[in-house]
């Protein structure tokens, strides 16, 4: 029963979701929406679970004086501060512009996130440097395509030769789009195959 019940639920829900793609009738759509709302409710509950887990893991680390335990203290302090700023009754509410909660968000969290995102520019350069080494015929083709696309996308490219933007456009519209669509068809078929394995209870590594 411990195994059969989850499998039965997965089967019923899987078949129902598949069928709703072809049945537009309102009663069916309403039931589908109801399930989605349940999911949202569950997700909200899990937000609390995540926060509790984060606090517990870091409190344990600080208590046991594990390596770099000082970071856990900073994290717990930040968590407590933001919780206080978020829950305290600010006039009119904590999410208004200029409130202490939003001040911390816009002046601390937002710049920190932007800093992390900006790292991408440097990582892209280092990854491209390795990827574009012409070690074999395929890598040489990749290098040539990359050079053409890069020159086609910057003003200096068309100054050197006005054909660069046109060749770039052709590369992106035909070979690139064709390859992407081929991968997408494969992805969708793989997805159907995996979904069937789960609906039929063939793939159940997560519950054996």
């Amino acid at each position, binding site marked *: 029963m411990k195994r059969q019940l989850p499998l039965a639920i997965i089967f019923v829900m899987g078949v129902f979701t598949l069928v709703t793609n072809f049945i*537009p009738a309102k009663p069916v759509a309403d039931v589908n929406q109801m399930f989605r709302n349940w999911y949202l409710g569950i997700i909200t509950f899990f937000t609390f679970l995540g926060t509790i887990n*984060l606090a517990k893991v870091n409190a344990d680390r600080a208590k046991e004086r594990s390596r770099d335990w000082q970071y856990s203290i900073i994290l717990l302090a930040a968590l407590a501060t933001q919780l206080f700023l978020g829950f305290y009754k600010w006039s009119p509410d904590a999410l208004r512009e200029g409130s202490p909660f939003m001040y911390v968000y816009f002046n601390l969290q937002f710049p920190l*996130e932007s800093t992390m995102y900006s790292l991408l520019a440097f990582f892209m350069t280092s*990854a491209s440097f390795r990827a574009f080494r012409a070690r074999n015929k395929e890598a040489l083709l990749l290098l040539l395509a990359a050079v053409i696309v890069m020159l086609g996308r910057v003003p200096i490219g068309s100054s050197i030769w006005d054909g660069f933007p046109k060749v770039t456009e052709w590369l992106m519209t035909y070979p690139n789009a064709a390859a992407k669509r081929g991968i997408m068809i494969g*992805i969708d078929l793989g997805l159907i*195959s995996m979904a069937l394995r789960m609906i039929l209870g*063939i793939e159940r590594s*997560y519950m054996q």
Partner: protein
Amino acid sequence: MRFEGSSGFGGKRSAAILAAVLVLGLAVAGARAESVSGVSDQTADQPAVAIAPAVISSIADTPHDGGTSLDITWQISPTEATNPGTVIEYKIMRADSPAGEFAEVGSVPATTAAFSDGSTLPGRQYWYRVDALSLTASATSEVIGPGVSIMQWYNGRHAVLALVIFICASILIYISVARRRKGKVFVRRIPALDAVDEAIGRATEMGKSVLYIAGGLDIDDPQTVASMNILSRVAEKIATYGTRLLMPCCRAMQMSMARETVKESYMRVGKPDDYKEDDIRYLTDDQFGFVAGVDGIMMRERPAANFYLGAFYAESLIFAETGFSTGAIQIAGTAMIDQLPFFVAACDYTLIGEELYAAGASLSQDPVQLGTIKGQDVAKALFVALIVAGVVLSLAGIETFNNLFLLH
């Protein structure tokens, strides 16, 4: 020593030039503002020129829907037909009775002569009128109705339904074939999966941990589910070798599912006591906060093998490059097409698209699961045939076949 504002000019001279530029700028801005205000006054002073109303041609139920939409078509205002640009938009107004109060349900720009009102209730009667608007006037069409939207139980996508049935049937047939011929299903080897043992073995030999990231989305995303299937097999090997698994999660539900999956794997190999719940932990839902947390773990713990399997966005390359800098062997897999090149460039092995979904079955080596991959290949052959047929017929000027697969 004192810094001057600019070289070559004295302070007083610079200030005079700045003041002159400012005065000139203000004068130009004032003139422009006057000119704009003149135009606006002129528009306001324009006499209202009457325009002819649009004529509603039909109100019909939107086919193959749940009874929540009506299609309204009309003939554009004759004024617009003879003098393009006069009418700027059409407002679609709806009421529950011909004499009822009309409320706007939408608007479309000039030259458009159709609108779908997607806010109707099945079986209820509605009356419509279309208001043509120019800059200075409006013209109301006759009220037409009643229009009734009807609920349908089938959305009419015959070709898509046929394709789904074919794909499911081919997979089911191969499952049945695989059940009959146990152990004789051949599926090509995936290099990234062959490297799983090597990666975990390397981590074990070096006495370091294995890092597993299941992507940035929750368990309602199929890629995360596929990642959990792979995690189950990977955790089995990790438990067998006695290596440490580190798994930071960016969704609490993902963490919960990962814990259950890994716990089951440890129990399967008979080492439930080695399972450490706190090694699978929640970091944050925030995308770049999660990136910072994972990068910190990579730099501090220096895991010898990194797995990135699931749905990734901009964080993919940051993870992969940080992992590369720590010297870890890296195995990635995603169905996010735009992130695949980053993983291919920065990781040692990459599961491309469908391979991510097939990986769980392939790692299990279960003939029945492998059978589903064979069935999937049959469906792929059908797609190739359909594409070739579509191209040939399209080149011959026959579009009927391609139109069968249009979703809208």
